[in-house]
């Protein structure tokens, strides 16, 4: 394992210190907890709290700031944070208008955030939750845990965050978040695995010419493995899956995110975006905004995901509203 760290045990703690030292204008560390909150928290608006295992940076701590999150809770690498940590975040950001928990659909995240919500409710804090499940790689079914939450979660942070910043009530912020969740779909693929520092070895192996399609962001296996194909073919396959689940028609407006998993050069992400734009263009859809970058990563995993969000007037306006956070700034 080749990593620029001091020790696997200290890596989350030292990362959080590094973030707080880098961005004092934006965030402060809750002493004694793996929690970053907005520098000015609490503020008199609905607050958003998200979080999950570490290793997805800049998610979630990088999105704490104006127009996005109020608090981010960091678990151990790839392990959901515990309820007491989430509860502390909720208490620290609650400005009296209530708190929305944005949860990615993993059993661990859901259970821990739910327990935190119960603890907060017991203290009289108004808490609501939404569960993001944008990953179409996994079949949805009411009999299973359903789809996973991946990069599309950032659109929830951005859009619900803008609604809260604009003074929306907890119910309104939740409604908007759920509208985004209903309209956002993603799918990814991986070229190479990543190594959880505490594990010390890659969580899976791929042959030199093999890729994993539908890869999860914690190294969970995807739908299948196949030989590496040209970028355009891979993109076409992922877009097929995404649009099958959430079709776009001529005249629809969408936002796009081409997300790198951490080890893939931006050069390749732009090659991907070229084909994504071509496919959407051929369907007659208009792309209102495109984001390309390493936003929801899996440590140093090579690969990417594509996210398509169908817009209506309301969520488009909220998407394009200003935001100012360490990892996402928009005028």
């Amino acid at each position, binding site marked *: 394992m080749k990593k620029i760290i001091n020790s696997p045990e200290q890596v989350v703690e030292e990362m959080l210190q590094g973030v707080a030292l880098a961005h004092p204008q934006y965030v402060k560390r809750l002493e004694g907890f793996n929690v970053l909150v907005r520098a000015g928290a609490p503020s008199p608006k609905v607050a958003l709290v998200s979080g999950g295992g570490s290793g997805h940076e800049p998610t979630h701590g990088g999105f704490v700031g104006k127009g996005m999150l109020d608090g981010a809770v960091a678990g151990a690498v790839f392990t959901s944070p515990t309820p007491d940590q989430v509860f502390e975040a909720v208490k620290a950001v609650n400005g009296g208008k209530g708190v929305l928990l944005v949860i990615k659909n993993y059993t*661990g995240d859901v*259970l*821990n955030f739910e327990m935190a919500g119960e603890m907060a409710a017991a203290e009289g804090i108004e808490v609501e939750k939404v569960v993001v499940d944008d990953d179409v790689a996994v079949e949805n079914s009411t009999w299973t845990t359903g789809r996973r939450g991946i990069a599309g979660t950032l659109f929830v942070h951005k859009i619900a965050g803008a609604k809260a910043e604009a003074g929306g009530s907890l119910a309104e912020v939740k409604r908007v978040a759920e509208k985004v969740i209903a309209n956002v779909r993603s799918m990814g693929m991986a070229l190479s695995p990543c190594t959880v520092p505490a*594990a010390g070895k890659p969580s899976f192996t791929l042959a030199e010419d093999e890729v994993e399609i539908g890869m999860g962001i914690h190294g969970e296996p995807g739908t299948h493995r196949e030989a590496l194909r040209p970028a355009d073919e891979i993109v076409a396959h992922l877009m097929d899956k995404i649009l099958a689940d959430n079709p776009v028609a001529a005249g629809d407006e969408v936002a796009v995110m081409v997300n790198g998993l951490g080890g893939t050069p931006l050069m390749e992400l732009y090659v991907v975006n070229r084909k994504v734009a071509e496919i959407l263009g051929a369907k007659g859809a208009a792309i209102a905004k495109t984001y390309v970058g390493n936003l929801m990563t899996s440590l140093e995993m090579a690969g990417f995901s594509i996210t398509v969000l169908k817009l209506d007037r309301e969520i488009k306006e909220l998407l394009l509203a200003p935001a100012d956070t360490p990892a996402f700034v928009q005028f």
Partner: protein
Amino acid sequence: MTNVYVAAIEAIGEAMIRNKEYLTDLDAAIGDADHGINMVRGFEAVRGKLGALPPEADLATVLKTVAMTLISTVGGASGPLYGTAFLRAAAVAQGKSAVDGATAVSLFMAAVNGIKERGKATRGEKTMLDALEPAYEAFAAGVGDNKPLPDCLELACAAAERGIEYTKTIVATKGRASYLGERSLGHQDPGATSSYILLKALNDFCRRRPAEEA
């Protein structure tokens, strides 16, 4: 004199440490390769917290300490699930000075029900419940037949072990392994395995000591 409840929990913790890599490897196959790491992080914290308890701490206090510590250190799916199990058991133990058969059955039942409610899962979904629920039933049946408690625990372990084998034959519909669909077939569930390890460690502990408590 050491607190027998504390000693029993410590024996469970040691078993988790011995099986850390095994549990993690099972999770690597169908999950995210952290179950052993999670359990050990939790039980190492538990050892610290139990060490700070007064020697006369009663069962409810010990169980509640285990519960709160697991909840606040394990994370993932298993943290809230095992945490809730111990919390519910603690509630049943409240005010009890000794554990008779009926108490042991209701402790066990409360724990299993806690997991079912928290995780909204039932048997047959390839989770820890596939080890724990049959183990509970075997235990309760033994108590019903007026067998000595250590024998009942032995029966529970055997049932849990069969539960592990059973998880290999089914597709996961709860937890992270459910994303795999058919590809989860043939693999044994890590959480069912840690449940068996827990019961087995308890059983071994009871065998090593005069059978004063379960």
